[in-house]
């Protein structure tokens, strides 16, 4: 079972924070197929948030085929995000390390690297969209 935390200052809406936290847990292998997500009532009771927020997050995860709701029982993970891509992490990390080395050599500081990464990331997403 995982526990959600909310960052009020992040500017990200609570429902998206829940979605992101589930996806991250799936990606890192903290949640695997068959695991149960906290019940809506549990999340509401621990975070003092609107139940519709949790329902909306779970519905979105359901739409993405990551979880399934069993009425009266709870919501369960139906797909793992980790195994297929986990193997690819290491070579990608090495590539990224090399790239970071090049960026540093070119004189970029941390902030510039982050800005460059995010703007490229966004530009690519827009091309796809």
């Amino acid at each position, binding site marked *: 079972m995982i526990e959600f935390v*909310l960052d*009020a200052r992040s*500017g990200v*809406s*609570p429902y998206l924070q829940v979605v992101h936290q589930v996806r991250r847990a799936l990606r890192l292998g903290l949640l695997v197929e068959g695991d149960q997500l906290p019940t*809506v*009532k549990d999340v*509401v*009771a*621990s*975070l*003092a*948030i*609107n*139940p*519709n*927020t949790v329902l909306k997050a779970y519905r979105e995860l359901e739409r993405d085929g990551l979880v399934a709701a069993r009425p009266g029982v709870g919501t369960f993970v139906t797909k793992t995000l980790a195994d297929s891509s986990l193997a690819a992490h290491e070579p990608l990390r090495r590539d990224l390390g090399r790239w970071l080395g090049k960026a540093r050599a070119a004189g970029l500081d941390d902030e510039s690297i982050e800005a460059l990464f995010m703007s490229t990331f966004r530009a690519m997403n827009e091309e796809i969209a």
Partner: protein
Amino acid sequence: MSAIVRTEGVGKKYRRRWALQDCTLDIPEGRVCGLVGPNGAGKSTLLGLTVGLLSPTVGSIEVCGGQPAVSSAQLAKVGFVAQDTPTYAGLTVADHLRMGAHLNPRWDDAAARRRIDRLGLDLRRRAGQLSGGQRAQLALTLGLAKHPDLLVLDEPVASLDPLARREFLQVLMEAVAEEGVSVLLSSHLVSDLERVCDHLIVLVDSQVKVSGDVDELLDTHHRLSGPLREEQGLPSDQSVVWSSHTDRQSTYVVRTDSPILDPAWSVTPLGLEDLVLAYLTATPTPSSASASAGRGLEVLR
């Protein structure tokens, strides 16, 4: 989905002053609706009208499908926790429960006792001896045990410390999850409402500035910043909520259903707090368009 509260041109006048004007609202069933605005904006007046403690000077209001407080059946549908979560200081917790059971036809005694038990309140304690947080919880317990379709709360957490505030909202949200009660609560602090509300009404100077589902409000409001530009230079489908100009830069908060395509703007999404603040600090309507244009010109000179 049907409306739990529907108002049509509602106004309330005290002597010569309008406490609420031209209020037209539609709050869908099952929502947790936050009512925000500065002190004196008319929040308590709107809540008083909703529960039937006040009657409108003009306009009509419908709550849970009927006129507020028109019959005992109608009274049973609406729970009200007034400002500062009042209880009877001389009565014990048990007395409060007994009174609630006698006064309310839909009273759920088992649920009330379960809640009191979980909160760890001693049934023999007088309400006057309880802490502020415990008194608030007692008032909330009474409001929920009444088993209403709509629970109205006036500034329920304003006087509570952060921990008591969190505990109060936890109990309230659990009740929403379990029983599906609709909630209307006021606050002058947006941060209290951000987690719990999925519908929002912003009230300023006795008028409703904006109302709607939080997700929709967040999707349709944007902050634009870029080179100095007059308000008239914006597309007609973008209505300006707030604007600020320096000698070379303009910042706008606009509401629009269409995407912002102009590449000159850098567009950032608004959080709920920023959105509310934009309405609270907006230039006064209805002449805001000409007024802010005038300011824009001054800056240009």
